[in-house]
């Protein structure tokens, strides 16, 4: 009998402890009904925006991390905002890759989205805009009329979902061709200029290969994205590049197939590294910075990566080896047909979103707006934009003295650009990409024809 009592008491204690755990939740959420009421009565809160009473903690996620050239600028700006306002930022930034995009989209799907995010404004943001989980700039301006008023609205991208503007941009991006001049000198090849063609490029690649170097630093089995974009662009024009083909039989469809075959030709000519199908992007980038490969097509963010590679301490700019950095230049991507070498891919593809969750939280609303206003102020944007474009109405004068040699070369290169067109891969999202992105090794080795791979992707795109 005594043992039965002990068993009953133990059971009771367990049940109580479980209840207590639940109780603490409900205690924590004891204010939930009130919060829920606030949520439900968000229109009331919206009518009377007020500054938060005490310090506010905002969860912010951005792509300013890793090798991004603005990673340190972002940290500095956040620290300055925190010091100025007394608020705190929980930073969940990460390198902008497919894993990051998946994480952000999944966070929205599961209701654990950040308060503010710096994210892509193309098709990547469609899902959470469709779900009404972010607030449009116009809606924010109904309560905060000065919000993003320093930006030229015409340059802020419209959502593909409803045509509204959601993301306040900071800086633009461009994609161009970086060159290692040490390799070019050794091969007797001059730095390509504004009238560079694909035929000249192939001749130069042959010379570079003959000199014992790898012409193109690219990991086709890992990140074929840049070559994919420009190979297709080379068979189109800036006017038609952003049209996703209906199928492979229309003009754009044929251009896509021709683009894939162009990459295959370069692969067969031996222009890519020997291990291009098994290497990672980091490995081929190291080949480029170590003076073993001549050309690298990449984005404006790679300026920071190359500069870091020229520092003995990647975190400390004072350790920069200026002599090594002088061996790098950035120029135009070889042109073909209707696309001139100076027609580049670029634009303002990202911006700061404020989530509905933060907007409807009376404690966070003003802080979130204030944070985005700070991060998109003229002073901060001019630091972030550097050699890229911005949407500022009155961009401050840029003091070139603060830039390193490669940034200056990038600004020179940008001054000669004849057009900047968005990336069609930003519209061609999801599993439709798989057959030509992940399938690039099969295409270049001839195991899958370019026609079949493109047709498969387009069919998936049309069925989305």
């Amino acid at each position, binding site marked *: *009998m005594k*043992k*039965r009592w002990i*068993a009953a008491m*133990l*059971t009771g204690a*367990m049940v109580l402890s*479980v209840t207590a755990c639940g109780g603490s939740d409900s205690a924590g959420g004891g204010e939930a009904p009130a919060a829920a009421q606030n949520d439900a009565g968000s229109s009331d809160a919206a009518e009377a925006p007020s500054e938060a009473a005490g310090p506010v903690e905002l969860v912010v996620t951005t792509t300013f991390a890793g090798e991004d050239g603005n990673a340190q600028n972002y940290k500095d700006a956040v620290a300055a905002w925190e010091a100025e306002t007394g608020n705190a930022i929980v930073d969940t930034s990460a390198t902008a890759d*497919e*894993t990051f995009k*998946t994480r952000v*989209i*999944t966070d*929205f*799907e*599961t209701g654990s989205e950040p308060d503010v995010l710096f994210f892509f404004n193309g098709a990547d943001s469609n*899902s959470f805009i469709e779900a009404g989980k972010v607030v449009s700039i116009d809606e924010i301006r109904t309560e905060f009329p000065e919000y993003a008023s320093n930006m030229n609205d015409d340059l802020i991208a419209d959502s593909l979902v409803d045509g509204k503007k959601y993301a306040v941009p900071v800086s633009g991006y461009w994609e161009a061709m970086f060159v290692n001049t040490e390799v070019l000198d050794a091969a007797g090849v001059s730095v390509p200029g504004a009238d560079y063609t694909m035929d000249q490029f192939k001749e130069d690649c042959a010379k570079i290969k003959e000199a014992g170097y790898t012409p193109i630093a690219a990991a086709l*089995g*890992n990140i074929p994205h840049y070559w994919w974009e420009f190979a297709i662009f080379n068979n189109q024009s800036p006017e038609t590049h952003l049209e996703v083909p209906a199928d492979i039989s229309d003009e754009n469809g044929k251009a896509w197939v021709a683009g894939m075959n162009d990459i295959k030709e370069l692969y067969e000519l031996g222009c890519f*590294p*020997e*291990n291009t*199908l*098994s*290497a*990672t992007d980091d*490995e081929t980038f*190291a*080949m480029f910075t*170590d003076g*073993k490969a001549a050309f690298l097509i990449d984005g404006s963010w790679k300026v920071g990566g190359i500069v870091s590679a020229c520092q003995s301490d990647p975190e400390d700019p004072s350790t920069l080896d200026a002599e090594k950095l002088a061996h790098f230049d950035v120029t135009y991507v070889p042109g073909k047909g209707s696309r001139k070498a100076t027609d580049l891919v670029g634009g303002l593809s990202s911006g700061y979103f404020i989530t509905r969750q933060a907007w409807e939280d009376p404690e966070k609303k003003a802080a979130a707006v204030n944070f985005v206003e700070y991060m998109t102020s003229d002073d901060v944007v001019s630091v972030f934009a550097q050699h890229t474009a911005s949407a500022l109405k009155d961009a401050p004068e840029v003091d070139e003295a603060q830039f390193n040699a490669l940034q200056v070369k990038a600004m020179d290169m940008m001054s000669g650009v004849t057009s900047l067109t968005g990336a069609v891969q930003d519209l061609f999202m*999801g*599993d439709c990409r*798989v057959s030509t992105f*992940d399938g690039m*090794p*099969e295409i270049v*080795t001839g*195991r899958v024809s370019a026609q079949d791979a493109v047709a498969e992707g387009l069919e998936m795109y049309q069925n*989305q």
Partner: protein
Amino acid sequence: MGANIYRNKKPAFVFLVPAFLFMVVFLYYPFVKNIFNSFMEIKRLGSAGTGFHTPWYSNYVEMFHDQNVWTAVRNTIVMMIVTLVGQVGIAIVLALMVDNIGRGKQFFRTVFFFPIVISATALGLMFNLIFLYDKGMINQILEALGKQNLTDWKAEGIALVTMMLPVMWQYVGFYFVILVTGLNNISDELYEAARIDGATRLQIVRYISVPLLHNVICTCSVLAVTGALKVFDLPWVMFPKGMPLKTTFLTGTYMYYQTMETKNVDYGAALAVLIVVLGVILSKVVNWIFREKDY
């Protein structure tokens, strides 16, 4: 009354309920839901299905036509054989050798067991450096020995070997420790009697150690084969997306690739079902082959 308390099993059931509920919520419900999801059309991770596929079993039909599934299943079976021969086989040899030395047993136990405590992701990164094409450790050694060209250890023909070597190496120590413990349980009197009868060391191993280790070897074999079905992290770190040319997929890495990389969530769910079915069948087969004997 006092004796009856031992017959009353109700309190035991009461204490089993929380663990049971935990398993239901975190294992069996997701498992059943996953089967359901494999018939649905799911566009994004975290979102609900928009309806059933037409026909509802289309993911399973696609699986039969998907060359990568066959590659993944084949590689997984190869991985099982490799773990069986490479991990358990090498562990047996090492255990028998260590059992025959006088001093330093503890030292070798620690040395061989050590890789187990290192995270598989860290090991993957380390082996990436070892097998790196340019400036990798092996290629540098070969270069120093006079080899002219660099070897791509992750190229199509050799990638599977490069992937399986570290996996094999990592777990040898685990089975080694189990087997050494098994050897320690064999009575010294048997060895002594054999020696008095004039048996050589090889005969002692052949007729005493190995037969008496049979059940332990069976347990290790079952663990190795079922463990091979779950290998994921090290291969994924070294060969993401089945690189090169999708030749290094295992069932686990292919399921992850479909779910997380291509966002084909429902197909990923169907692949998860395939993994469970394969796991159950292969576990049964292995249990039958390596069933324990009574001595």
